[in-house]
């Protein structure tokens, strides 16, 4: 019996490897990034047995995975929760086409927004798309569920959604491994017309999807993960979803929970399992790591007068992640009390690394915009968002990937001058390119500054598909070559960089300034690996 010490993310990755996937597709995003990184570092990933290069964004990742599945092979796509918004079109329509080889989409949710712009609950996407959802409670389950999810996916010809919250994604525990299944053979779908979603076909396919969605709730691959345990005290019944059950049980020594408990970790589930609780208890506490999905269904619009406690009545805070103490206080258990934090303890906001090129770039931007009396520039998501903080305080927005470019266009339409966007290299190739095409098509007077640190920095330095291609992408999209400028953000180039930026602000059409300088963290890692490569070669 082999027991590996794995993060929740890594458990999913190892599960995917052992379940015989042929392709892994992802765009980085906390807390999902380690799934792809683990596969890339695995023997199967390194040898190329599993295709595992980063995709340009989550939509391309899901579509590529669907293409792999079309050919009969198992594939997985992974992303952070907001990535599923980007991939939503592909995800929802792949439920209608159905799959051929097993397909799992992993969405890593970030309740409490540890490193995200919202805390949306991906389980709703499952319901919206009529796709089954697995929500593992622990690392072992994260591993095991992958096998069932692939089988389920192939049996019903449906993509399957797996949802993992930050706390499980980034927590390590022992996982018992199974023997590896060989990868599936190349086999095209018997009926390839179902992938053509013309209305006549789509209508038929949607009916099939609706039928399957009803049927699969009784499939053992889902039902076995929803467990009921009776308890002597029927004054309260508890429904706990996903990892919430861990926080609940933490409050009872030796697993002696007095109340009847339904622990749910797959969706959709049949109404019958709810009856185990509602048949016994008048009052029900619902614990969910995320939005009140089950709670809302339970309450319904016609409230039948049963007492239901949860996020919607304030028993549990309406937002933010759960923990053992929140659950304790919902149950009226006195939480443990530690010492208070002395007032002298200060927070440590994240900041640019020492020597980061973004800092020099923003110094130039701050000076370049000064004469215009504008508040700042539109920006996007990445390390460069830190310019929202002093001493720069020069960005006005960070909404969703790519929004800087398009918001700048809209603001220019409204009369803002100069209208400027600052976007990272990876964010630009993720979602900024179509916006730039909009600017070109209408000759919008905007300046797009691409903060090119040659990597996807914020998420830990993954390869960026933009590297070495920005110049040709921008001119290819149609920006006049003389208005695609390249600068090196260094202090000694400050005057020149300010001048170049101002020249482009003054140009009454779309212009791009590419500020290229390697991320210092990525540079340090590169030098280190080059050194160890060299050492290895010398030894040989």
């Amino acid at each position, binding site marked *: 019996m082999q027991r590996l010490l794995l993060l929740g993310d890594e458990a999913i990755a190892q599960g995917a490897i052992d379940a015989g996937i042929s392709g892994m597709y992802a765009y980085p995003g906390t807390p999902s990034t380690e799934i792809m990184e683990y596969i890339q570092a695995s023997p199967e990933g390194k040898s190329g047995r599993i295709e595992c290069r980063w995709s340009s964004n989550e939509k391309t990742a899901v579509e590529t995975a669907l293409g792999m599945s079309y050919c009969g092979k198992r594939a997985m796509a992974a992303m952070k929760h907001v990535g599923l918004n980007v991939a939503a079109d592909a995800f929802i329509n792949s439920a209608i086409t159905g799959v051929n080889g097993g397909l799992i989409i992993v969405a890593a949710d970030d309740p409490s927004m540890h490193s995200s712009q919202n805390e949306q609950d991906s389980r709703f996407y499952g319901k919206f798309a009529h796709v089954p959802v697995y929500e593992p409670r622990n690392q072992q389950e994260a591993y095991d569920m992958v096998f069932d999810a692939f089988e389920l996916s192939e049996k019903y010809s449906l993509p399957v959604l797996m949802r993992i919250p930050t706390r499980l994604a980034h*927590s*390590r525990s022992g996982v018992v491994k199974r023997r590896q299944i060989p990868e599936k053979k190349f086999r095209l779908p018997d009926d390839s017309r179902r992938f053509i979603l013309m209305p006549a076909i789509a209508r038929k396919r949607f009916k099939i999807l609706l039928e399957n969605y009803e049927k699969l709730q009784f499939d053992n691959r889902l039902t076995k993960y929803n467990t009921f345990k009776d308890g002597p005290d029927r004054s309260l019944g508890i429904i706990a979803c996903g990892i919430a059950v*861990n926080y609940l049980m933490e409050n009872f020594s030796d697993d002696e929970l007095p109340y009847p408990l339904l622990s749910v970790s797959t969706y959709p589930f049949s109404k019958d399992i709810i009856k185990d609780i509602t048949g016994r208890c008048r009052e029900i506490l619902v614990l969910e790591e995320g939005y009140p999905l089950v709670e809302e269904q339970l309450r319904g619009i016609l409230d039948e007068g049963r007492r239901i406690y949860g996020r919607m009545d304030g028993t549990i805070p309406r937002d933010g992640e759960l923990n*053992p103490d929140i659950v304790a206080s919902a149950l009226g258990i006195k939480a443990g009390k530690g010492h208070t934090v*002395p007032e002298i*303890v200060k927070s440590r906001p994240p900041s640019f690394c020492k020597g980061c090129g973004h800092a020099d770039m923003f110094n130039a931007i701050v000076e370049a915009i000064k004469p215009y009396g504008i508040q700042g520039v539109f920006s996007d998501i990445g390390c460069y968002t830190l310019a929202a903080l002093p001493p720069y305080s020069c960005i006005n927005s960070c909404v969703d990937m790519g929004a800087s470019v398009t918001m700048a266009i809209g603001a220019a339409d409204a009369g803002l001058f100069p209208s400027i966007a600052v976007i990272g290299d990876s964010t630009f190739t993720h979602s900024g390119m179509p916006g730039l095409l909009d600017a070109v098509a209408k000759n919008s007077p905007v300046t797009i500054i691409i903060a090119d640190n040659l990597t996807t920095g914020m998420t830990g330095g993954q390869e960026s598909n933009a590297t070495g291609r920005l110049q040709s992408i921008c001119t290819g999209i149609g920006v006049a070559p003389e208005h695609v400028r390249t600068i090196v953000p260094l202090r000694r180039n400050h005057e020149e960089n300010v001048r170049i930026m101002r020249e482009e602000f003054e140009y009454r059409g779309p212009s791009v300034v590419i500020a290229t300088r390697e991320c210092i963290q990525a540079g340090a890692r590169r030098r280190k690996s080059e050194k160890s490569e060299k050492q290895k070669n010398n030894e040989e």
Partner: protein
Amino acid sequence: MKKDIIIAGVGGQGILSIAATIGLAAVEKNMFLKQSEVHGMSQRGGDVVSHLRISDKPIHSDLIPYGTSDLIISVEPMEALRHLPWLAPGGWIVTNSNPYVNISDYPPVDEIIKNIKKVKNSIIVDADSIAADCGSIKAANMVILGAASPFMGIPLENLEDALKKMFSKKGEQIVEINLKAFRSGRKIAEVQ
């Protein structure tokens, strides 16, 4: 046997190597373990924390409840204080005395030390100097681990074996430096 340990510091100070060493030792002893880590945003000069739980029975929560942690291990003094709400009555603090100053309003160090000493069971170690004496200031985290080692219910030899395994890829010299750092830390805890 059950130990709940908070490991704190600033991104890049090596708290994950501390956690990994304890984790490895616990797994070798066939104990159950859960260890939550901080990834992402907080790596950029922000504070980082790991909740490490080891037990001879299955563990439920990945997070430690308030007021129940047996031990806070911190590679930075102000970070030791940040996690006081988790410390159990009678729990231990083992911390480095050397501040990591990357903010302009960092409090006076003697104020911090005074507050740490208010906790009855605290050990404050100049881990940077000791590590430097052992051969590399980078081993400061292993000095702290050594000083915390009597309080985590894992036999010394298991921890040392885990440490050797952890650093073995980096060569014999690195193993020696870190082992020496670990033992120096342990000695300090023993005379307290």
